[in-house]
Structure formats: structure tokens, C-alpha cells
């Protein structure tokens, strides 16, 4: 496995820490005028999702992590695995529950997702920034009440719950921002 020296540190570099692949978010040189230099980095652990600070002595080397992002289409789930396909090579990959995590609620068939592979195996799924999903359950809004401020909860076909305006009804398809889980409008038909 290749190593990176601290001089190669920059945002986006993938390194191994405590046996887990990590993404460097920020790298800062801490160097007294007289004395040892250090690299203080902010790191996201790619499996646990934890963000932490870590300091290295400058000049040390750190094991690189074989991590790559690929764009794959979501196909279906068999309940245990979520299956994705490369639309050019038709190669398929199955991600387990740990890799899909919370984002299971944003998986829409045929949507293109970012699948993060570590040593060839999926460790994280990033859905598109916007997905369109059908509302399967929401309270009927009160007639004439269009000025409601808070809206109402609506359950989507994937199980996700988002707040929608009062005039939105069960059966409608809505567009949601997956980064913050907010309703952005009715789907364009």
C-alpha cells in the first residue's frame, strides 16, 4: 500500500487511520518559528462518519486508503442488499445496510448515486441532491388554510418523513433536497 507524506496532505486526500479509511477535510500547518512542525488535520472517517481532529508530526508518512467514488444507478433491494449498476459496463455491485445507512430513505430506482468504494467494496452511498418521491400518507389540509407556517408531516414511499405545505395531498409526487431533507416543490410532470 502506498504512503503519503504530510507534505501531500490536502482536502480530499484519503488516508487510513485506526484501520478505517478517512477523508481529509482540512489540513493546517502548525509550525513555531523555532521548533517542530505539525500538521493538524480535520478528518472524516468514511465508515463511521465521525469527524475528528488529528495531529501528525510533519515529515511522518501515513498509509493511503484505496477509496474511489463511482456514479452508479440504483436498481433494487432484496431486503438484505441494495443493488447498483454501472450504466456503461452493466457491472453490478451490492451494498449492505451499513454502507447505505440513513440514505436508504432517498434511494429511488434508476437514480444515479455516488457509491464510495474502499478496496472495491461499497462503504457509503450518496444520493442525488434532489429526488422525487410520492407521498403515501399525509393529513388532508384544511380547506382555505394556505397561510399555514409550519406545514405538516408527509410520509413518502421510501418511508422518509418530510414537512410539506398544507395544500399538498396524498398521491402527489414531491421534490426533496436530500442534503437537508427539505421539501422544495411539486415534481415537474
Amino acid at each position: 500500500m502506498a504512503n503519503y507524506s504530510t507534505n501531500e496532505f490536502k482536502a480530499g486526500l484519503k488516508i487510513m487511520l485506526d484501520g478505517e479509511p478517512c477523508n481529509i477535510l482540512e489540513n493546517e500547518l502548525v509550525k513555531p518559528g523555532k521548533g517542530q512542525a505539525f500538521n493538524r488535520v480535520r478528518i472524516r472517517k468514511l465508515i463511521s462518519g465521525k469527524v475528528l481532529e488529528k495531529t501528525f508530526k510533519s515529515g511522518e508518512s501515513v498509509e493511503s486508503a484505496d477509496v474511489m467514488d463511482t456514479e452508479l444507478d440504483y436498481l433494487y433491494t432484496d431486503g438484505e442488499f441494495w443493488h447498483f449498476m454501472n450504466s456503461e459496463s452493466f457491472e453490478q455491485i451490492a451494498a449492505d445496510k451499513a454502507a447505505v445507512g440513513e440514505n436508504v430513505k432517498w434511494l429511488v430506482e434508476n437514480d444515479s448515486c455516488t457509491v464510495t468504494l474502499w478496496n472495491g467494496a461499497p462503504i457509503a452511498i450518496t444520493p442525488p441532491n434532489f429526488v422525487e418521491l410520492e407521498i403515501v400518507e399525509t393529513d388532508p389540509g384544511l380547506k382555505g388554510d394556505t397561510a399555514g407556517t409550519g406545514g405538516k408531516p408527509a410520509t413518502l414511499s421510501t418511508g422518509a418523513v418530510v414537512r410539506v405545505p398544507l395544500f399538498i395531498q396524498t398521491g402527489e409526487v414531491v421534490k426533496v433536497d436530500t442534503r437537508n431533507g427539505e421539501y422544495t416543490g411539486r415534481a415537474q410532470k
Partner: protein
Amino acid sequence: MTHWQPSATVETLEIRAKLLANIRQFFAERKVLEVETPQLAQHSVTDPHLASFRTEYVGPGHAQGLSLYLQTSPEFSMKRLLCAGSGCIYQICKAYRNEESGRYHNPEFSMLEWYRVGFDHQQLMQEVADLLQVILHCKLPTYLSYQQTFIQYLGIDPLSCSLDELKDVASQQGFRDIAQQENNPDTLLQLLFSHCIEPQIGQEVPIFVFDFPATQAALARISPSDCRVAERFEVYFKGIELANGFHELADADEQQRRFQQDNQRRQQMGLPVITPDNYLLEALRSGLPDCAGVALGIDRLVMLASSNNNISNVQAFTIHSA
């Protein structure tokens, strides 16, 4: 698309120009002579934590080439002037340090360095405080010894603690991986100081930290009253290391020993050995007047004066677009 624009605003460059003018006026009023010394020289510092840029002169006298270093500070040349009887001198110049780039570092930066004949480090700290008040309009600074700083912020005495105690404190502060492997107490002290103390001190007014451990003396005299410490100080303000000063070492033999110690450490670290500067050693042998000197980072001073938090905002162009 090539981003050609400067990384500092014209407004900040105006603040910078005014600040430089004020510094020159400060020293003119105090009758300190402005000097210029070479930035390219045959010798460089032996400090294992400083990496010099090296280049080559080819021309009359040196058809085969002469290795030259871009100076990491003008210290050696300025001391030769002091030995030659210049009296009090100051210099505003570029300094060059390889491997240093970040929020507070650029490999090429501006330095203010000055020497006061007849001053010790206490008197020079007072003058640095005067300068900071003129330039930054800040309030009176505070003063704390290196030893007290560690006792106050980390509950450990840096001058008497054992290596294991230092390792324990470093581990408690979240640096277990470094602490387990590191057996150099000074590296651990520098880690703790830069990560745990520096961000906390000098937030409201500048703070002078003085009497650094003798093992971090650099080119300062060892204190005649306590051989565990050197007559060295640093200035911090708002999380920024601003200046480093010494009651200057004048003993040529001691200077030569320190060069040798540095080079031994360089060899242990797998770094190139730097030939000691004989011009400096000979000058010291002829006699350096009793003096104190300090180097101050001008870019960082401008950062404070203009409320910028990145060196790229106070230099017209940094290494990223030079």
C-alpha cells in the same frame, strides 16, 4: 482560467504600506540604523527545524558554480555588522523558509529584525511592547514565564517533569499516537505549547512568554541565575506567534558547539549537514557587543492590523499564485 489577481485587496496593501512607514518612523525616532544584508549567502542556519532554499551562482569568480542559500533570517549578517561596530540596527527584509505554507506561513515572507546594543531581553521586550502599541494600538501586554505558562494551562512544570509525565499529559490532550513514539521532550513541549497553550494566551492583549528551556535556547544566552532556562522570549497575540527575541549569545565557542549539536541532530533526523558560518564565528571571536535582538513577522503584524485571518490576504501574491 488562470487566476492572476492578487490575493490581498488594495485596501489591505495600503494598511501594509502605512505599517511599514510607521515602523521606519519608530526606529528613526530612536536612532536605530536601517541596514540591508544579503538574502543570498554561502551559509545558512543549522537549526534542524528550518529548511533553506538552495541555489547556485555561476559567473565571474565562480565559473564552476557557488552554492548559495536564501536566508531564513538576516541574523548572521546583522551580527557581523554589530561586531564591526554598527551600533543599534534594524532591517526589513524578505526571509525564505522551505516546507512552510499554510494559514500563517508562506515560504517567502517579510521580517523585521532589530538589535539593541546594551539591552538585555527584558529591555528589548519593553521596546517590542512599545512598537506593538504604536502599530496595533493595543493595550499593555502581559508577561509570563515559559514555566508558569505550562503550570497554569497544563498543570505541569516543563523544567522539572520527566519524559513519562510529559507523555502522559500529551496523551490526555489527545496526542496519544505522537506521545507513544516521541522521546524528545522538546518536541512534546512544542506540541503542547502550539496546540494547547498558544490558542488560549494573549487573546485580549499581547503576551510575552520568556525564559524558554535551555534546550530550546537557539541563539540566546543561558540565564546566569538559572541554567535550566535561556534568555529568550516570544510574543503571541490573538493566537498568532508574532516575534522571537534573544539576549544574544556572544560566546564564539558556545556558538560553535550549538552549530555542532544542531548538525548531530540533523544527521540523526536524516537531514543534510549545514557547514557552520565561519564569517559569523570569526566575527563573534573579534567581539559581539552585549546586545539583544528580535525578529518579528511583518505579514502576521499586518494580519492583526487589518483583521485578516490568512496570510494570503496580506501578501499581494503567495506561493499559490507567484
